[in-house]
């Protein structure tokens, strides 16, 4: 067993715990509790010995320092696919590879691991890796810096016992609570009765431990490489008008739509790069309100977007690049349009797209009612209309609220009355006291009134409880 030899050779981290491996680690026998809170693992979920998966986890500490590690991780995942078709992302900085099936091709597990590690090293990337029968165990071992290969699931518990709990990547509150009961290493956790663990920390924790010990299967989502459409077209004569450009781009849009149709996919974004003879490249992005692959919709939005564009110089060539492909069946088309079946109901997202393409992304928005006491915080602009709208506003109970809110309260000239009440306004209703926000330093303490001014406009005005000044805050339009 070369793997075992390798275990004892390289995993000095575990030297002390090899003894612990012989200590009977509590197996999943829920000792005395008649109705076990965690369902026992059905034997069928245990993979057959010869088909047992072997997971290789690799962690790239350097990625953590990058501002956007996602893209780099995707590239690495793409490369890892030369070893196995089953690569899974573990953001922000780790990958999981199922390598059992690759052993026939690449040799024994430790040889394959060494080979993959050498590959990262050639790239100047420091990587920490480990292989184990479960993805979680492999990941935890890799995080601990243990470069080992464990093939036997029975050996897992002993190997994991020495790992500090931080290797699990659990959130701070959970780690803190575990530390409070004196648990700092996985071994100590594994020794606790399952039933008590499930009661105190929830069944998810026990399920995770089972998955780590390969007693329960934990399916991983396979990484699917990002695919994009990209095509370029050169123009013999430079195109000077944006309108003609839209026509000249139609074949590219048509090709893009065919490409998307073949993959049953759509995009939410198209990018256009325009090359000029002497000017820098012009970049144009067109966004869609939903995922789409409809050539007419692609073309129309692109045309609207181009109509806003002032061309710096004649265009010699253009490239159309799609955003990441998204599945059309996912229903994201409906996230916006709703499930309303009638054709006219589905017409809004194209309308929103057209408005955004011409007026700009931020010129078209919805509003959401937010459960917040401070009036200025109770309404928020949202990109997608209706987001967070399901949440009922705090004051839905008939207290009048103005249809229009001023961007910031407008100071009213003080009158001659004792409380400096503005002479232009006659109070009709109130006061409604609103006090809140002390926790973030932007606290308000105001008495709100519905009032009418000389010309008959009805406003929502308030008096500062501290400064005694009066302000206009909204209009009952």
């Amino acid at each position, binding site marked *: 067993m070369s793997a075992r030899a390798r275990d004892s050779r390289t995993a000095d981290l575990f030297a002390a715990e090899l003894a612990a491996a012989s200590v009977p680690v509590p197996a999943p026998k829920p000792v005395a509790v008649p109705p076990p809170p965690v369902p026992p693992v059905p034997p069928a979920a245990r993979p057959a010995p010869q088909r047992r998966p072997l997971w290789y986890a690799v962690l790239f500490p350097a990625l953590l320092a990058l501002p956007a590690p996602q893209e780099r991780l995707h590239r690495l995942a793409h490369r890892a696919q030369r070893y196995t078709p089953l690569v899974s992302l573990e953001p922000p900085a780790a990958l999981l590879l199922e390598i059992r099936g690759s052993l026939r091709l690449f040799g024994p597990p430790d040889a394959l691991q060494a080979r993959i590690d050498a590959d990262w090293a050639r790239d100047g990337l420091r990587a920490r890796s480990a292989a184990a029968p479960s993805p979680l165990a492999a990941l935890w071992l890799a995080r601990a810096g243990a470069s080992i290969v464990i093939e036997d699931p029975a050996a897992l518990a002993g190997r994991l016992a020495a790992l500090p709990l931080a290797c699990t990547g659990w959130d701070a509150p959970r780690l803190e609570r575990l530390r409070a009961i004196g648990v700092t290493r996985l071994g100590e956790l594994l020794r606790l009765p399952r039933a008590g663990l499930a009661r105190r920390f929830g069944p998810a924790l026990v399920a995770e431990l089972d998955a780590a010990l390969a007693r329960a299967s934990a399916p991983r989502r396979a990484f699917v490489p990002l695919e994009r459409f990209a095509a370029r077209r050169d123009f013999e004569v430079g195109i000077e008008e944006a309108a003609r450009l839209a026509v000249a781009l139609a074949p590219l849009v048509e090709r893009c739509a065919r490409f998307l149709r073949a993959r049953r996919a759509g995009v939410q974004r198209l990018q256009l790069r325009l090359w000029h003879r002497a000017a820098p490249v012009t970049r144009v992005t067109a966004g869609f309100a939903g995922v789409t692959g409809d050539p007419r919709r692609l073309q129309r939005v692109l045309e609207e977007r181009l109509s806003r564009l002032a061309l710096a110089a004649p265009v010699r060539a253009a490239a159309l690049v799609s955003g990441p492909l998204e599945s059309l069946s996912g229903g994201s088309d409906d996230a916006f349009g*709703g*499930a*309303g*079946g*009638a*054709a*006219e*109901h589905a*017409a*809004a997202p*194209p*309308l*929103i797209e*057209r*408005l955004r393409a*011409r*007026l700009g992304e*931020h*010129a*078209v*928005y*919805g*509003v*959401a*009612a*937010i459960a917040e006491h401070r009036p200025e915080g*109770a*309404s*928020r*602009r949202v990109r997608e*209309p*209706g987001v967070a*709208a399901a949440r*009922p*506003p705090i*004051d*839905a109970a*008939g207290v009048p*609220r*103005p*249809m*229009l*809110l*001023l*961007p910031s309260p407008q100071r009213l000239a003080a009158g001659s009355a004792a409380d400096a009440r503005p002479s232009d306004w006659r109070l009709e209703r109130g006061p409604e006291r609103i006090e809140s926000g002390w926790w973030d330093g932007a606290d308000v303490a105001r008495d709100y009134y519905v009032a009418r*001014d000389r*010309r*008959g*406009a*009805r*406003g929502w005005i308030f008096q500062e409880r501290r400064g005694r000044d009066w302000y206009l805050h*909204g*209009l*009952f*339009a």
Partner: protein
Amino acid sequence: MPRDARSLAELLADARVWRLKDATAAASRPVWPTGRAALDARLPDGGWPTAALVEVLLADYGLGEVQLFLPALLADGAQRDAGGGRWLIWIAPPYEPYAPALAQQGLDLRRFLVVRPESATEALWAAEQALQSGACAAVFLWLKGSDMRWLRRLKLAAEEGGALGVLFRPERHRFESSPATLRLAVSRDAAGLRLELLKVRGGQPASIALEP
């Protein structure tokens, strides 16, 4: 000749010219009862037209001008229909639409959109797009300037898309001609809200006092 053609268009757009075509077209359209009997009695077919351009001239914001239309629109359920209703779009409102008030009225915020164009032309273009899309129950547009050709286009777009277009403009445009199907001036006096129906296709100009 072109000069004559233009004057004909101007003539037709004049508020004092009443065209038979419009009157018959309006008669076949459904309406939204305003919820105020005194007002319904004065409006053709007893309510706000559902596919037309209505122009509202205002002395000031905050007179209850939106309230004239919103409850009627909502009572009909045209905008809120279990998420599948048609849209209400506000273009260039003078201040920020306040979500708690809108939700209080029963408006479905999933079908509510605000558009903030940078110029009057963009606002008019957006209104035309929204009105003719068929996706909107109503489009409210706040506008300061005046452009006859554009207003005429809005009217056609509203009829084509089956949407109610409400155009809020300052009162100073009162004496200009307008292609709107219905024109009213809103003011408030000691007695309460006063509506002057300046132009009513298929009806008579009138002045109506409403409860506050």
